[in-house]
């Protein structure tokens, strides 16, 4: 959930609206937001399933230090979703284990 107003910060400044694809579904986000937070705001908490125990993981450190928010972004696995900003048209996939490389998107 994104809040519109905050008692200290006032009206929260947000960037332009963008649409990203998360496991094939369109999700709205705002420019400047990190992938993991945009997904969280949309109710998506599981970003990654672990390799050995196949357990779900979500945001943990939120500063790119831990391993928990790795996702496949535009075909590249192990992208730290908490420190990677969203971009219009970005293809984001839940990563299972070590993930895999997808065919590179045709860069427009």
């Amino acid at each position: 959930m994104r809040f519109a107003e905050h008692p200290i910060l006032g009206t929260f400044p947000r960037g332009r609206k963008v649409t990203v694809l998360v496991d094939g579904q369109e999700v709205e986000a705002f420019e400047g937001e990190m992938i993991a937070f945009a997904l969280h705001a949309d109710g998506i908490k599981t970003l990654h399933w672990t390799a050995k125990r196949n357990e779900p993981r979500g945001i943990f450190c939120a500063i790119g230090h831990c391993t928990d928010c790795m996702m496949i972004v535009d075909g590249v696995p192990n992208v730290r979703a908490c420190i990677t900003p969203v971009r219009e048209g970005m293809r984001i996939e839940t990563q299972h284990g070590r993930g895999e490389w997808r065919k590179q998107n045709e860069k427009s």
Partner: protein
Amino acid sequence: MRKVEVAVVGAGPAGLTVASEIANRGGKVLILDENAKPGGQLFKQLHKFFGSSRHLAKERGFKIAQSLVQQAQEAGVEIWFDAIVIGIFEDRVLGVVHKGKLQKLQADRIVLATGASEKALAFPGWTLPGVMGAGAAQTMMNIHGILPGKRILMVGSGNVGLIVSYQLLQAGAKVEAVVEAAPKVGGYQVHADKIRRIGVPIYLSYTVKEAFGDSRVEGAILIQLDENGRPIAGTEREIAVDTVCLAVGLSPMAELTWVAGCQFTYINDLGGQVPLHNEAMATTVPGIYVAGDVAGIGEASSAIEEGRLAGIAIAADLGYLPNSEAEHLKEQTRKELDALRQGPVGGRVGQAKRALLDAHATYIARQAGREVKERAEATWTGSAPEAPRARAEVPSAERRAQGPVAVIECYEEIPCDPCEEACHQGAIFVGEPITSLPHLKAERCNGCGLCIPACPGLAIFVIDESYSEDEATIMLPYEFLPLPHKGMTVKALDLQGQLVGEARVLEVRNPKAYDCTPVIKIAVSKELSMTVRHIALDEPKERSTV
């Protein structure tokens, strides 16, 4: 390879201060910070800071960050953002990833002001989505405007746990509970009171036994601990939460300090392994300094003073400051630091810091091949610092009956004095040292309430028992949305957040000078004047979202 005179890693309070101190005297300084914005952790801090009114007190963290950055920039400091220092190599070479490339820098002096990192607590379910560091929650809500969850369990009642709980409440979440393994609250009482009076229970001698849920946190089981910290079977209680925040302490973020080859020692009260340093903040590796949390967990004001110490030492070392003047300035700064390191929290840090300096001196002497007499461990007992000097007193019933008067509910020695400065009547006295409890000269107080928004602990209330036959008025700080408006009837809550009656809103003051700490004046029945400390609005509307 680029050469710089001084490289500072970390643009938090310590790093920015070091840089300004050196640059103001003519040194060339480059700050490297891995974040997109400078200010370090200050940028996530929305609360007003304790401290001396001469420095930064009652400023909110993110604004302190802004002014420190401005100071540094005016001093001519160069700052690289998104600049990640990946290592320190021979001859003070730094590897810096900046603009997507690894660059090589060599510095005459390096200051590591890399701050702190969060400690962890492992329990079944701690890997579930929804369990996160308190810092992560802060980043989400205060930087990105996204609520981490709706129902929160906070693990740990140190200042981080208390402050983040408060910020979560401000952002619109419900904090279901704070658990603390120790039998007493870890952080300052005023921070605890801020969330208690909203109704957040703080369970002491409790820990989280387990978080559960099907692919995300749906609840947690709490369990009570005995005096040895062992769980007591049968005391489990389940609470429904969607988020568990971990605030179980900080440790120095000292990776680079290790990589640079500095010597360390373990001091629990400073967060664990800390780099040895001397009084000028120099480590055991020539030319490499530390300042702030990386040199032992403290708070922002002392990080700034440590930054100043390092800055003065380096400026002198590089010839930008005569030695005699440097000595004088260092002495002054040390006095400031000593003043900050008093009271229940600061005092412990102060003792631990002295132990760290001793350990450094011992190491240096050993390296020089000098015999070192084992220092008497008596200097380091870890015992509580000296007893509080005075107890803040409550104005007498007679005084309260005469008209509005401030009630200062500040019972711990905190390095903080803005209330003294805020009072135009000279009714509040803190004096030296800055950790002394505020003393109210009730006869001088006119109940104006200016001290209310000035108090970073939100611990001052103005009571007027002369208001009417059966009603008293209370002025209290209220940093939440939506604000009540005049004439509204609201719930009156006591110190524990319990509903004790109704209140009528008489006035809402929110001028710019209050800096987002509106003051609400309410009328309650007279016998509740010393009980009511917070209000709640009926059926709060769903917060507006984007």
